[in-house]
């Protein structure tokens, strides 16, 4: 496994273990998506506001804010802030809040999220503003598949195609699980691709753990004339055998022994 992704996964597990709380499943499922975005697709200077090119940065919104551990560890491994700070995650007075917050000035955090179903509408606002400002930056949003059940997501999807926001690209982390079980049992999304297309979006389905497929999809997305959705098929808990595809690991911290076993697997 790619060492960047492996480091991110190890950090996610250590952070959640240290906080005795957090969301391993949905964090581990989006590691490759974030990795490709931050390493290959987006322009985002780790110097953040200190960069002279700050305004040109591509915007990233983690709409599924509970995957904060994945975003924080990706950012730290890219040098946005000190790696040590990761282990203040979810503790009193930390800049690494349980769900991303812009209040504490953490480098790399574009908007505050955590209440599901709001990130895409915020992204539409940002995309509109970028167009008004003749700024060619793109807006990337990561959504959970369960999150797609929120009606507001579909309001935003409609707005984006209505406004022809070709600067907006979303990724749906299609790990097929939410909290109460399989997304298709709780409230089915299918046929997801056809629904998105019917809402005026171009759509592509990829293996969300295959970096080449992801990178290719982003390249296609960037040159699309309409808003673009990537359905990334993933495994919740990817990389740790006992967490994979196991709904019980949505929002639970590994204990000492589980952390040890998980890290051993990632070392192998």
């Amino acid at each position, binding site marked *: 496994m790619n060492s960047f992704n492996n480091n991110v996964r190890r950090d996610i597990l250590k952070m959640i273990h240290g906080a005795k709380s957090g969301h391993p499943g949905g964090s581990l499922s989006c590691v490759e998506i974030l990795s490709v975005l931050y390493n290959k697709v987006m322009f985002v200077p780790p110097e953040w506001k200190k960069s002279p090119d700050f305004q040109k940065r591509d915007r990233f919104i983690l709409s599924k804010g509970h995957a904060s551990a994945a975003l924080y560890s990706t950012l730290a491994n890219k040098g946005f802030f000190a790696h040590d700070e990761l282990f203040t995650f979810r503790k009193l007075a930390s800049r690494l809040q349980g769900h991303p917050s812009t209040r504490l000035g953490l480098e790399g955090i574009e908007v505050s999220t955590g209440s599901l179903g709001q990130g895409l509408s915020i992204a539409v606002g940002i995309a509109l503003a970028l167009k008004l400002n003749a700024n060619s930056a793109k807006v990337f949003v990561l959504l959970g598949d369960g999150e797609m059940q929120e009606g507001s997501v579909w309001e935003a999807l409609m707005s984006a195609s209505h406004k022809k926001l070709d600067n907006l690209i979303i990724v749906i982390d299609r790990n097929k699980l939410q909290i*109460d079980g399989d997304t298709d049992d709780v*409230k089915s999304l299918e046929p997801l691709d056809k629904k998105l297309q019917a809402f005026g979006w171009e759509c592509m389905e990829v293996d969300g753990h295959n970096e080449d497929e992801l990178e290719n999809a982003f390249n296609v997305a960037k040159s699309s004339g309409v808003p673009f959705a990537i359905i990334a098929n993933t495994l919740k808990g990817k990389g740790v055998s006992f967490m994979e595809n196991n709904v019980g690991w949505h929002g639970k911290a590994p204990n000492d022994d589980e952390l040890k076993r998980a890290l051993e697997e990632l070392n192998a």
Partner: protein
Amino acid sequence: MLKKTLEIKSPRNAYGETLVELGAANKNIVVLDADLSCSTQTCKFQKVFPERFFNSGIAEQDMMCTAAGLAAEGKIPFVSTFAMFATARCLDQIRNSICYPRLNVKIVATHGGVTVGEDGASHQALEDISYMRSIPDICVIVPADYNEVKQVVKYAAEIYGPVYIRIARTSLKSVFDEDKYIFNPERAVKICEGSDVTIVTNGETLCEVIACAQMLKDKGISAEVLHVPVVKPFLAASDVIESAKKTGMVITVENHSIIGGLGSAVCEVLSQNLPTRVLRIGTPDCFGQSGEQRSLLEFYGLTDKKLCENISRYLEKR
């Protein structure tokens, strides 16, 4: 009325268990949840009555109005999710589709207050009582422990009309004896008599206040503790006024913003009937943050020790 030995029990379990009892007794009871059925414990009802359980998925607003529809056809829906999403997310739905038509919907929200813990501000409902209290025709209840939750949930099923019940995430000391305590929506529960100061509280902070009153006693301060589970309609007003008459000093304590909740309800009643100095303790005008439950309670001055410290300092200065 009060328990001698304090067992720690989960108020959320009390909710789930009571739903099953209610469901067995009345076929019109239906339950809705939005992908948090294990957290809210509505999963207990789902197991026994799957055909009367509806999971809306992560779609709280949809769920709230679906409950309105079920109620319009004579069902008695219990709707659950976290207090943040039940109230803030669905305020318009609750106001316009449930309370305005005065439909028989019971909103039972868990994870109220800062004790949501590590999830942080986005999940900590510090304003839910304030939102709910400002809507006409809804009854707002903040029960304090396992035994009281059971009675309050049954009471909600018995009365007609919208009800909001806020339940803590935390497992709490059981204060009330299940055989001797009888929930009365019209009264304040006098936990202990006192003469120097009246402390009014409810919900999760009751057990902290009880311990605090003991600490104050050791310092020579005699506190009268009132538990007021029903914040609206505020029928316990006369009990609060009577106690304030005696002590001349009132302090409110709640795991909620000092704006719009129990503290405000007490101030509204006293200012009209018996102008009295009131110190409101709760979260100040601020958002919450991530942290371990107990350290957050301490940070916001809501543990027994912090309450005792702050209250005695306040009384000294007076």
